[in-house]
């Protein structure tokens, strides 16, 4: 009885999230923009707060996040799978430690050090690299966890009926690990969208530029719009991640 009620509650909160989260995002963005544009803007504010600038900075931010996500997926998922293979299992703690360091180190420090190490070149990838490094851990850890948590009897059944090792990996282990990987990716992406606000310090733009400008020049509308948009983007990514977990995960497990 109590578990049924709890399940019902969980389902209700999930439904609320599916509809509530995007609505909240739209409302916040709309409210902040209306407030900013309705107030008296001086020249500096007008230069920073117009549709063209906001759209292009938001776009830059999105592109940065997508690039980070792509790198994370293409590095962390194969690496994670590799580290679950019998012959490479011993190396898993080593790579997890590195990824842990990446996440534990202050992201702005990693970003700036990387920038300086490359001789101060302004380049899209100069920001993407360190941010990806920073966001690697959740996907790496969850891929390893996800593949390891596949019931060994499925693997044995697969092997026992004549599947090759790679067939077992691609038709059994990976699909069953997808929910874990997606959960990790969702965390990674939210981290990446947040950290991408720092890209402005190495000249890569993004919504961080509004925040930094607004702060330096004491123009609060600029700062608030930048911060609100970055937050809205993170919430939106989280929401998309939730949808993906709901719809992309293996059927038959739901």
């Amino acid at each position, binding site marked *: 009885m109590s578990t049924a009620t709890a399940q019902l509650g969980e389902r209700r909160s999930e439904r609320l999230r599916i509809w509530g989260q995007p609505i909240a995002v739209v409302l916040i963005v709309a409210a902040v923009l209306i407030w900013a544009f309705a107030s008296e803007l001086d020249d500096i504010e007008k230069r920073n707060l117009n549709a063209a600038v906001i759209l292009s900075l938001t776009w830059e931010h999105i592109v940065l996040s997508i690039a980070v996500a792509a790198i994370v997926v293409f590095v962390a998922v194969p690496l994670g799978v590799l580290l679950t293979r019998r012959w490479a299992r011993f190396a898993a703690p080593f790579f997890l430690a590195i990824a842990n360091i990446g996440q534990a180190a202050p992201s702005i420090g990693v970003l700036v050090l990387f920038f300086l190490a490359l001789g101060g070149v302004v380049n899209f990838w100069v920001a993407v690299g360190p941010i990806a490094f920073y966001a690697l851990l959740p996907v790496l850890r969850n891929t390893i966890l996800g593949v390891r948590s596949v019931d060994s*009897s*499925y693997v*044995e*059944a*697969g*092997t*026992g*009926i*004549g*599947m*090759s090792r790679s*067939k077992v990996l691609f*038709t*059994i282990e990976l*699909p*069953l690990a997808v929910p874990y990987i997606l959960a990790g990716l969702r965390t990674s992406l939210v981290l990446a969208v947040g950290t991408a606000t720092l890209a402005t310090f190495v000249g890569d733009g993004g919504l961080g530029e509004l925040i930094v400008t607004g702060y330096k020049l004491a123009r609060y509308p600029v700062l608030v719009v930048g911060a609100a948009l970055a937050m809205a983007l993170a919430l939106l990514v989280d929401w998309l991640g939730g949808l993906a977990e709901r719809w992309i995960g*293996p*059927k*038959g*497990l739901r």
Partner: protein
Amino acid sequence: MTNTENAPSGAEIRLEEVTKRYSGTASPAVASVTMTIPPGKTVIFVGPSGCGKTTTMKMINRLIEPTSGRISIDDRDVLDIDPDKLRRTIGYAIQQAGLFPHMTVAQNIGMVPSLLRWNKKKLAERVEEMLDLVGLDSAVFHDRYPRQLSGGQQQRVGVARALAADPPVLLMDEPFGAVDPITRGNLQDELMRLQSELHKTIVFVTHDFDEAVKLGDRIAVLGEQSKILQYDTPEAILQNPADDTVAGFVGAGASLKQLTLLRVRDVELKQEAITARPDETVEAVRRQLEERNRPFALVLDERDRPARWVHKRQLAQASSLRTAGKPIGDFVSTQSTLQDALEACLAEGGAAVVTKERGRYAGTIDIDTVMATVQRLRDEAGVSE
């Protein structure tokens, strides 16, 4: 391997001095096992848990590689065959079915044929055929996922998957271990029915001796390190356990278990009961009982089916044979086991009515007959000793 219509009976499996030694352990898990598993027969590996019976079985499809010794299927050394290809020719069913939870019933069943690159049409037809074979309605189950099935249904799908590519050999690792006793009984009956049609070579691992007696053509009772304590027919093992360990494993109820191996048709039925038709007069039946000095008469219906027992005292007040006496509680058929017959004898107070085809009266069986049969089997076993 053939997939022809009248597939030949299963292959012969031979194990020669097969040993498995894990590194870092003092004694081998399986020590020098030599046995021949005849084609088309069901051989049960039975033994206490941890005795190495599963290890021995898994060496046949190379899920575990033997340390030394030779295993051949129809005279082909399994070590000469690529393990993945080998396993596609050997059906494999395990406890809790091992169905892939993210694939439908149809995808699970079609897995081995798809590994063998059958074309789509043939594969789809085969899936239908297998669903039908294990008694699952395709319209209902084809697109279901394993977690939507009961334990027994999952087990059926597991068997269907193992048989889908028509392998000559079937390995079953405690496949019915995780289902309730009633479902297990049904699955066992069904496996016996399938086997009587298919004649595969089945290697079946269990720790349940009753299951072994029921299913096996031969039973290999295994001890520590998979040592073969006795390898014989269920009858022979029950009558004549090779040593105390086997006797202990057979358990206290050996004589009772033996009764499950014999059918009522195997023993002579008694024809002494006085039978009557419902349209005969009460007076005629009573006279007959008195003449032959019997207390009971058996009333049959119009189609010769036993209906009621009637006592001579009851006849005194009865007007018609249709309502006199009491209905028969428990009767057995010629297909029933002697154990069922004994059960019915006890329930009916000494003798049970036996029916033949279409429920017609065949005779009676009493406790003395069952006792005599057990005694005869004992004597025969004693002679062969």
